[in-house]
């Protein structure tokens, strides 16, 4: 796949470039700010854009705004936002758009998981950092999820991360059939409508988790 990177720190930028290139992907452009990102993306038409959420000049949400602009202009393009901190509201808002990922920067060190998530986003799926998901299902929400079994909760978290059933099965060393049963149970227990579309399933789960999360 073809990846465009926007990251202001040179070391990290080059690290990401070699990460993708080492995995056999193509990196046609790596930018140090969000300014020319939209034009570059328009030119290169990559499968995936990886953006640091905080970039010059104000170091607040330049990356996030650029990501939204790209998504508006090229809905088919995958956008992966890299962040330094765990934010549930913001992250869930972005990820709910589909073809969108929100991962903590440290996640890139788990190369296999990271590349898998990147690939998923490039394919129009979702990726939400496990730590963000953990936050979503922690605190007050944990009480609400008390009706789920430990395994069901694990499945729920992986669903929220954006994993497909087969990916979940691989991750949990379960058969796909077992995973499907767990998914069905979770959806029923949480009273979430479930279809076969992986993305809509993620949206439903995230919406549910967020509602649960903000209710308190």
């Amino acid at each position, binding site marked *: 796949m073809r990846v465009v990177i926007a990251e202001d720190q040179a070391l*990290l930028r080059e690290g990401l470039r070699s990460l993708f290139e*080492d995995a056999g992907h193509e990196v046609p452009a790596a930018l140090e700010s969000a300014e020319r990102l939209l034009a570059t993306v328009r030119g290169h038409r990559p499968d995936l854009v990886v953006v640091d959420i905080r970039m010059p000049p104000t170091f607040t949400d330049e990356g996030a705004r650029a990501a939204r602009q790209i998504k508006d202009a090229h809905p088919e393009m995958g956008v992966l936002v890299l962040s*330094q*901190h*765990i934010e549930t509201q913001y992250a869930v808002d972005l990820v709910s758009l589909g073809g969108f990922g929100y991962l903590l920067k*440290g996640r890139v*060190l788990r190369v296999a998981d990271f590349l898998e998530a990147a690939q998923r986003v490039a394919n129009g799926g979702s990726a939400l950092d496990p730590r963000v998901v953990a936050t979503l299902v922690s605190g007050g929400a944990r009480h609400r999820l008390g009706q789920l079994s430990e395994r069901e909760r694990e499945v729920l978290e992986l669903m929220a991360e954006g994993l497909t059933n087969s990916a979940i099965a691989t991750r949990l060393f379960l058969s796909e059939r077992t995973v499907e049963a767990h998914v069905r149970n979770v959806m029923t227990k949480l009273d979430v409508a479930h279809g076969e579309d992986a993305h809509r399933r993620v949206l439903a789960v995230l919406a549910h988790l967020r509602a649960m*999360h*903000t209710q308190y």
Partner: protein
Amino acid sequence: MRAQYQHLFALPWHPAPCEHRSMRRAPLLPWMLVAVAAGLMLAGAVLNALAGAHGEPWWQSALWVVATLASAGVGGLIALRRRGHPIGWLLLVNALLLASAGAAEGYAQYAVLEQPGALPGAQWAVLWDQSGWPLMFGVLTAIVFVFPDGRLPSPRYRRVARIAAFALAVFLVLSFLDPEPLEAPFEHVDRPLPSLPAAFAFLWPLALLGFLSGLVAAAASARSRFRRAAGIERLQLKWLALTAALVPVTLLICFASALLAAGVEERSAFSALFVFMLGAIPASIGVAVLRYRLYDIDRVINRTLVYGALTLLLAATYAATTLVLATALGERSAWVTASATLLAAAAFRPLRGRLQDAVDRRFSRARHDGLRRIREFLEELRAGLIAPEAAEPLLRDVLSDPALELRFWLPESEIYVDGHGHRVSDRPGDERVHTPVLRAGAPLGMVVHHAVDEERPRVLREVVEAAGLAIEIARLRVELRRQLEEVRASRARIVSAGYEERRRIERDLHDGAQQRMVSIGLALRHAQHELGSSKHPASRIIDATVDEIDVALEELRELARGVRPSQLDHGLAAALRELAARASLPVEVKADGVRFPLDLEAAAYFIATEGLTNAVKHAQASCVRLCAERVDGKLMVSVSDDGIGGATAVDGSGLRGLSDRVQAHGGTLQVDSVRGHGTTLVAELPCAS
């Protein structure tokens, strides 16, 4: 002009050292002069009575006595009070001249007409009586020249005054050495002095012209002074002008009578007019001085009245006691005297207080009332019924100056401030007068007031001095408030700087350390890739190292979040939701997206954090409610739980820290924590900061 005569009132509540000395030294000379004048006057009156039919009619003598007394009294008072001031001495000389002329006349009438040859030197008395009068005009001219400040109106008049004095001297010499016979009824008396040769007669018109010019110059000087004068000085000059106008009139009539050679009867009427004039001028000066408290004379009068009456009353007490006891016991004994003395001594203090009070009430109403109100105010102040800051409105009221301002001196900052601690300085064009307020020699502040007039100059100083204690307390309170204000402001600044610092540290952790560690991890992963084989032992080491990096990243992230949550960038509501999401118990958040100043949002966030921590740690709560909203221009943050309650703000507890944080923003913290009914913290933070 105003400033020029201010020094007239510059009599001081702390007398200048030199004045002190002169006051202490017995003021003998004025008393002696008054005594001599009185003696001469008495002698004249006795001789006049002895002269019988040859003497003056009684009303003329009475007029003369009154004129002498007026001049001696006013002159004596001023000379006592203001030794360096020429007016007092000039009036005393005037009194002496009047008295001596009267005595000389009586002497002449008795020794020449009634009992010829009974007394020696009769012709000297006649000569003095008839030729001394220009000297009196000279004294009056001098008074007109220098009234009221004791100086000539301008240096130009120095030469004029010298010429006038010289002309007067020539005129006097010519009068005394005149070859003409003395006037009736003493035409047969020989002149005791040799006569001038007739060749000097040409000097007469010149001397007369010089003498009259002196009078005109005096009038001109008074006129020019009047034109420049303002306020009280104008009023004083008016009083003098009233009687000084008599001088030329009298002089004209005298000359006319001499020229027309009028009869003795008319002459005596003119002479009465002359005497009246000589008495009227000191009297008008006396009025000007008393009415407008010139030369601070009222204090002398006040003392004189009080101690005069005191002496009389004590003497009466002593006499009455002695009489009563002696009558009752039928004999005089040592202990009758002792008892009377004791009674008089015991009566001294209360009697003096009463008399002083009565005299004050009668003669200086404003001062008396003002001081009484200040005393009452101080009593209320001591009783804690009134704030010392009320001194300003009180002074305004007492001194009837609604624009009066009390300013306090802050020695540390070296500025003047008002009662609210705000710095004050004079507006340009403000012509108000600044009177310093001192206490034990140290400046407390000043009273800014309109230029005082009439009888208030001394009243103002005394009233302000009496209020010194209240002013000092008020000053201390203002200073304390100001310092407290400064401490508050600096605490708020420090807290704000703390938030800013947290923000910087958080940024540094995220964008510096964390990024760099991720870069290192990526470099390691790249190296691992270059190794090619995942079976390589180095590959396992790299895996372990990257895991360590991941842990370190997590720790750094938690550290940064504790320093300052990045969600605060998106507003208080977002940060509170994030806080709630991470809590180990259900937390309900009620907050809308309204934004506040950054440091206020940070303060509110940390208040909520600490409140939540308290609820989790100590309250055994099952759920917590966080609320942040804008109410009446304030940011209200509340944290309520359903825990065990009974929280108190003891030292070192979380509540204490919370309270400090809230107060640093000028807010208030209310803790409602009844045992068994949960805890509710409400912090009110003012938004305008």
